């Protein structure tokens, strides 16, 4: 599914060059559930941004289904995100002045679905995450756990093949954390590829492979067969 070849990403921050990824080559197969772990500032979010087609690497190539992502125009990469990639954010990133239903409708609207299709699919997604009764509530009227479930429904709306999750349990209590991880596992069992950045070992335990980032290097644990750090 994903293939990264000799990918490097450096920033200049306060006059110093920070290397987030250093000549990393690895692959993520279709249907994998990957946990990306590492200390703060190790480049986990940078990796997620690169995988999402939102941050061009300084060097190297990123292939998604054998298409070189960063040889595409930004408009074409937006289209790839719209069709194939779903995001889950730590802070949910729901639009505060839209209802839960309307938030879930957004990716469907961007995909050009009719109003009726949008309503049917958004309803079904919210029912799936157990929020069928709260679909007309705004995010401010929902608990943190409920907001993350709305965000999960929004992620699934366009049936993406890949879900990129950035600390999806970071703002949740233990019970809700488990519930969200169960949903992500369920999405993975349906055949979707999940790449999840997390600090939480319990959350990482749901993954079937862990990528550890340290000093710009990517290490795979426990299987080392797919990792070839430079």
């Amino acid at each position, binding site marked *: 599914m994903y293939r990264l070849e000799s990918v490097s990403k450096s920033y200049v921050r306060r006059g110093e060059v920070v290397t987030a990824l250093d000549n990393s080559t690895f692959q993520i197969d279709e249907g994998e559930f990957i946990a990306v772990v590492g200390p*703060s*500032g190790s480049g*986990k*979010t940078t990796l*997620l*941004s690169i995988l*999402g087609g*939102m*941050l061009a690497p300084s060097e190297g190539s990123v292939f998604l289904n054998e298409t070189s992502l960063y040889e595409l125009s*930004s*408009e074409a990469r*937006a*289209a790839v*995100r*719209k*069709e194939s990639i779903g*995001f889950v*954010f*730590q*802070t949910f*990133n729901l*639009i505060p*002045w*839209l209802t839960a239903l*309307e938030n879930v*409708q*957004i*990716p469907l*609207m*961007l*995909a050009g679905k009719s*109003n009726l299709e*949008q309503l049917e699919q958004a309803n079904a997604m919210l029912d799936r995450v157990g929020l069928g009764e709260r679909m007309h509530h705004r995010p401010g009227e929902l608990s943190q756990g409920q907001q993350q479930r709305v965000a999960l429904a*929004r992620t699934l709306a*366009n049936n993406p093949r890949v879900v990129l999750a*950035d*600390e999806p349990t*970071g703002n949740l209590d233990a019970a809700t954390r488990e519930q969200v991880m169960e949903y992500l596992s369920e999405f993975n069992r349906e055949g979707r590829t999940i790449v999840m*950045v997390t*600090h939480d070992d319990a959350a990482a335990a749901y993954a079937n492979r862990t990528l550890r980032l340290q000093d710009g290097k990517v290490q795979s644990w426990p299987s080392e067969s797919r990792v070839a750090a430079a």
Partner: protein
Amino acid sequence: MRLRNLIWKELRQRPTPMFTGLLTVTLGVTALVAIQHITISSEEKISQDMDTLGANVLVLPNSVSLDDYYSADMHGKTMPEEFVTRLALARLPGVQNLAPKLCLETSAEEHQFILTGILPKSEFQAKSAWQGLNLVANPIGSDRGCCETSATAAGADSGDRTSLASTRTIDELGSRELILGSDLASEMNVGIGEEISILGDTFQVSTILPATGTIDDSRAFAHLHSVQELAETGPVVNVIEIMACCDDAAGGLITDLEAELPEARVVTLAQIVETQVAVNGLMSRLSWVFFSILLLVGGASVASVMYANVTERRREIGTLMALGASRWLIARLFLGKAMLLGIFGGLGGFLLGAVLASLIGPGWLDIEVRLMPGLCGVGVAAATIVALAATYLPARRASLLDPCLVFGDS
């Protein structure tokens, strides 16, 4: 849900930030619409007045200044009636009619009013015959090359005495006949054929004029020589109204008149009107200046509000980009909002301006304001263009935001 729903919902849910921008755009259009309505209606009224007044040149005593056409004979100064005869016999090209007037403030049956002496056309014909000129077609001038106005056309019905209200002249008038303005007649409660005693002389009401909405409605008219007798002024008049024809003919006429009567002052209605038209023109140009300034302020306000809106919605924009929104769609979110601001600002400004003009016009300026829907298009188009132009840079900035800002820093 469509993009327009997204824009509309955001505006409805968070109207406050946009209010300032909307208000300034609305005020700009309001100023333009109100002033344009008033100036254009004023020009139309002047044009109508020019067409219906009949007399468009006034000969006045030298010391008189003129503020109001309808009270041109109310200044109390006089000049010899002989001036009328001189003008009639000069047969100047472009003169269609002469109407000398003398005013006398008087009372009858406990009612104060102005008795105005007028000279019927028959007097001019008598003078022509006496002079041996035998000018039956037009005894007072030469109307060659003249066009027909509604005033002269109305005057064609020479038997109708009520035409005095519009043509300022009358064919026949007996020495003890009285013509009453409509307001005065109803105030005195008298009808045609009834007799009224004025300064010891008895006059018979021969005609009641239709209402004109002018000071003439409160006047009484009698033969000039009868009024001269009552006022004991001798053969004098306060004003000579001249019905001059088309502009071409009237152009040279003024010079001829001034040459013929150097002792008097010749004032054309066009001069009076030109002043008003010049004021209207200035107002009209000023309205565009106000409009431009207010729209510039509105544009700056819209731009500032839009920049703030982009900053406030950075995470929202990033989220939309992460979900697959193109940069153009993000720009359209803001440009669409600007378009709504322009349309609503333009429409609101047009409505406010029209209401303002319809209140100020008749109330303060005595002008009936006609609604001009064309200004709605001008207002909406200009407001929309300004709002879109002001939003271009903020929208571009939004579309170029880094979508990675949606992620937490880790």
